[in-house]
């Protein structure tokens, strides 16, 4: 279980996170929604230790992440970055097997390649993609390779940062279905940040809305449409009029 308690983070005068409290149950898929610039990525990167919060606690299975062994902690995570973040200098299979070729999870090269190809198949790509470089792939293929990299080491917790940004609606649907399938199959805990409502309805068990640095509303995805919260209502229906200022 992931638990955030009173998380604060400011950049200069800008209070991005102003006391975030949130719990994500083991094996559940939590989707964080919120407008652009509301701190969704900061929240996710804080949990991974890429950004140090100013205040507050992040607990994973009851253990404070700042006190955990960093390598062992990160070995439990997989992450799909918004732009893919594939390493340009490495072929696709080495991108996917990156973690399996170094550090505590190191395997023999052939085994790492076999796992990479199996993960490629898992995300619907053929093995001939394995030796190509990321720059030779389309945006959708890059996203799938990035997804394959995120699941290569069978992580317990997977983060998805805007998984459908920049993709056409059909490819977005493919990625959403893949994420849902993978999360269910692996029994992983998932945390996704997005403002794509189709993704929300496909991927989420629970949702939380981040607004003004705090969790505005959280609950099961099925309750979202009848939440009675004006903020979430405006957001999911994409209305310009409402309590959230359209121009921030």
């Amino acid at each position, binding site marked *: 279980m992931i638990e955030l308690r009173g998380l604060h983070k400011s950049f200069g005068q800008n209070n991005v996170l102003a006391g975030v409290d949130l719990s994500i149950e083991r094996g559940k898929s939590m989707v964080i929604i919120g407008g652009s610039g509301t701190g969704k990525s900061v929240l996710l*990167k804080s949990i*991974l*230790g*890429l950004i140090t919060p100013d205040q507050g606690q992040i607990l994973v299975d009851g253990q404070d992440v700042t006190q955990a062994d*960093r*390598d062992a902690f*990160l*070995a439990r*995570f*997989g*992450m799909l*970055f*918004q*732009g893919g*973040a*594939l*390493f*340009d200098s490495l072929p696709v299979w080495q991108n996917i097997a*990156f*973690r399996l070729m*170094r*550090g*505590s*999870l190191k395997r023999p090269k052939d085994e790492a390649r076999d796992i990479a190809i199996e993960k490629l198949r898992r995300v619907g790509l053929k093995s001939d993609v394995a030796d190509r470089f990321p720059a030779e792939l389309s945006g959708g293929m890059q996203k799938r390779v990035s997804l394959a*990299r995120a699941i290569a080491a069978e992580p317990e917790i997977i983060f998805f940062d805007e998984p459908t940004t920049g993709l056409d609606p059909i490819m977005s649907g493919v990625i959403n279905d893949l994420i849902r399938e993978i999360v269910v199959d692996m029994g992983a805990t998932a945390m996704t940040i997005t403002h794509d409502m189709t993704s929300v309805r496909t991927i989420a068990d629970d949702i939380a809305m981040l607004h003004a640095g705090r969790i505005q509303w959280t609950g099961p995805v099925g309750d979202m449409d009848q939440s009675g919260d004006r903020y979430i209502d405006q957001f999911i229906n994409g209305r310009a009029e409402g309590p959230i200022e359209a121009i921030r």
Partner: protein
Amino acid sequence: MTGALGALGSAVLAMLASIGRVVIFAANTVKHLALHPFYPREFFQALVQIGWLSLPVVGLTAFFTGGALALQIYAGGARFSAEAVVPSIVAIGMVRELGPVLGGLMVAARVASSIAAEIGTMKVTEQIDALVTLSTDPMKYLTLPRVLAATLSLPILVAVGDAIGIFGGFLVGVNRLDFNSAAYLKNTVDFLETADVVSGMVKGAVFGFIVALMGCYHGMNSGRGAQGVGRATKSAVVAASVLILASNYILTEVFFTS
């Protein structure tokens, strides 16, 4: 008046903060040398990129500089009938000063810029964050192999550049200034001391460290977008060039007085 002093104070503080950040970055890089793991594949790739592929530009620079140096010394020496010093001055000038400095500057232009652009782009496209999430320390995976490769390959590049520069001077001396080829070579060898060569190679090692360190530092601290990467690249080349020239003076003082 107060405003101007305040601005001056802020600028000095900002400069000191920058120096502090670079020193901490350098100390972190050196510290990682002693820590597990080491990435040999990345190190050898950096060695090829920085050392081997810089050879043509360093060689050409040294060749033409050696030739021009021979002509200049001949013209200057002729004013007091000292044309015979051309071989020894070309050799000493190339080995002690021009070989390492020009080699360092050429590598700074070629390598510091490419390292800063590559790492800066990796930062902007979240590849550095991805490395961290894949349990890989970017300082170990990106910075250390490049800094180590540059520090080890620059002395060799400088030595090769020295030889090519002296050969450039020899060609000009023999073909253009009518020196006897055997006498030119004898003069070169007789006047050149081991300390000259070693001091130039030590300079090369320091310049190599500076070049890669500046490339990595500015790349890792690159701003957002194309403009941020462009600024990081420019800063890396400018900082590396200035630091090469400044440290060259300090090293020359050290070698001169010792």
